[in-house]
């Protein structure tokens, strides 16, 4: 129902953007490169939906933090103290559609005969390797979990909980919280993770879900072993007047070393 209200607005904006400038639409990434993206456009006079970094392409400023969001839905935790009506997320279910070929051959909704019925670790073939190069060495869980611990075995555009119930891709926290309970708790309370919008505890907020910041297929990032991938940093501040370089900063530390 709400979609019908959105449609004219989208059309209008589309027309406006066509008539005003035919410049190539600028796409920026929201939190991490490779995850959710947003296309730059004007949402009012002198008001862009986002401003992006010319250097890194990251969103630097939100004109409308709630743009394109939908209600997040319930959190099935008894003490989840959050404002249900005012917690919104950016949906990504529409982005996880399957290629027709995949849907016809393997992911038909039932487990094809001949496929292993258990969740034992085994090598994957074909397109899955683009996501995880070697599924037997999934860099998440250090060998103790495997694809079907998170992905539903038959409903392939759904995640899965402990009892094989499907979980929407819009709510990966329900899945991640299975193991990362402590982090999940912090996230529910706004201590962990990112939210934008209104700061009041009763305010409307867009919640960034786990996978918008973390890449679940590669959480270790090699030697660094951190949950966040490396980013290209923004430019360093301008050097103070009279300074040519900042080489002095890389000298030895300690008060007595001069």
């Amino acid at each position: 129902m709400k979609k019908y209200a959105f449609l004219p607005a989208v059309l209008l904006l589309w027309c406006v953007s066509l008539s005003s400038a035919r410049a190539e639409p600028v796409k920026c990434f929201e939190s991490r490169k490779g995850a959710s993206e947003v296309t730059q456009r004007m949402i009012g006079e002198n008001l862009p939906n986002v401003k992006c970094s010319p250097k890194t392409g990251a969103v630097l400023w939100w004109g409308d933090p709630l743009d394109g969001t939908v209600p997040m839905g319930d959190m099935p935790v008894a003490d989840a103290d959050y404002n249900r009506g005012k917690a919104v997320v950016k949906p990504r279910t529409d982005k996880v559609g399957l290629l027709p070929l995949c849907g016809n051959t393997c992911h038909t909704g039932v487990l094809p005969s001949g496929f292993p019925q258990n969740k034992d670790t085994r090598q994957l073939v074909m397109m899955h390797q683009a996501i995880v190069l070697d599924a037997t060495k999934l860099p998440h869980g250090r060998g103790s979990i495997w694809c079907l611990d998170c992905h539903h075995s038959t409903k392939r555009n759904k995640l899965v909980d402990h009892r094989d119930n499907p979980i929407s891709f819009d709510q990966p926290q329900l899945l991640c919280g299975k193991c990362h309970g402590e982090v999940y708790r912090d996230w529910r309370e706004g201590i962990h993770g990112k939210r934008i919008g209104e700061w009041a505890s009763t305010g409307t907020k867009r919640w960034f879900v786990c996978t918008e910041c973390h890449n679940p297929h590669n959480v270790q990032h090699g030697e660094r072993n951190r949950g966040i991938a490396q980013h290209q940093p923004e430019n360093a501040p301008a050097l103070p007047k009279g300074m040519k370089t900042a080489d002095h900063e890389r000298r030895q530390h300690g008060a007595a070393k001069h």
Partner: protein
Amino acid sequence: MDKLKRFAVDYVTYVVKGSPAFYAWIALLCALILGLLYGTYLHAADGLRYTGLTDQVHDGLYLANFVFLVGIAAGAVTIVFPAYVYHHKALHSVAVLGEMLAISAVLMCMLFIVSHMGRPDRLWHMLPIIGIYNIPNSMLAWDTLVLIGYLFLNFIGGFYYLYKKYTGQPLNDKFYLPLIYVSIVWALSIHTVTAFLLNTMPSRPMWHHSMMPIRFISTAFAAGPSLIVLIFLIVRARTRLWIENSAIDLLATIITYCLGLALFLTLSEVVTDLYANTEHAMGLQYLMFGMHGFNDLVPWFWGSLAAMIVAFAILLTPYWRTNYRLLAIACILAFCGIWIEKGMGLLVPGFIPTPIGEFTQYFPSTLEIFVTLGNWAVGFLVLTVLLKGAIGILLGEIAYAATAQDKTISGNAEVSIAPELT
């Protein structure tokens, strides 16, 4: 009232006349003031962008000179105090010269503050009633108060004395002496408050120690009388006003004590800071030895220390101290040494490193140097004029009776023997 008008007219006609050397000196000062005018114009038009100041080192040459000159202003009390408290005869007769020095020094302080400010056009915001005067919280507000007060005390005291001398009337001690005693204590207050201006900020550990007021006063009472001794020697050489040896000797003694104390305090600070060598000693370390490859201030620090030690050695030896040629050298060394130590040597390491540990450098720009010279030139111009007038009155060359007499004898009498003050 008529007398007062006469006084003004005689005073002005006297001070504008002089030898070619006097005019050359004035011309030099005016040339420097042109630089100041240009700099002030640029500051007003474009802000302080032409200075070498940065967000890291945001107070530089201007504030450094301000701090030093407050000391010079306070140092004038080294004449007034012995003259009126210990009734030192020789100093008593020339005490007014100290007040003239104080007036010009305070004036320079004010000029440097105006140069330093980002919005001098909004100075009126500091005025009580039409603006907001943040007293008692702001040390800068206190400093303004004591400096303006000191200017008035010296102006009133000095010109009251000169006027009475001019008319030949006796001083009204009930009015004059309290003024003098207040101004003596007030002199201490201006430099104490200037020290408080800096050392009440724990954000700058280099400054944040309780020794700063006494160190300020001891250096001021060394640098101030050094300048006075130099002025006295010039006055003796170039004018007919004779200043007794005993006056100069007493000042030399004061310089000796105060310079010794200043050196001792410097030593105390160095030992206190560098023994434990905490993060808070980085500023001093940067100043003394350089840090992270930055060592532009190092020669200045050691040069200043050497100058002060040599001056102290000369002053400490009676045989050298009484040789006025050597004494002059000692005074120049002490003056310059303290100017460096208390100016750039104190301010800049307060900003390097910044409170969050950034190391930078500060290079005063050419314009900054010109403005600084210009401010000094204004001060010296005022000082020259004030001293010349004061000396003329002390010599009796400007006198109410004399002018009246001159008038009756010859219509166009001129002060024929103007002091060749340079």
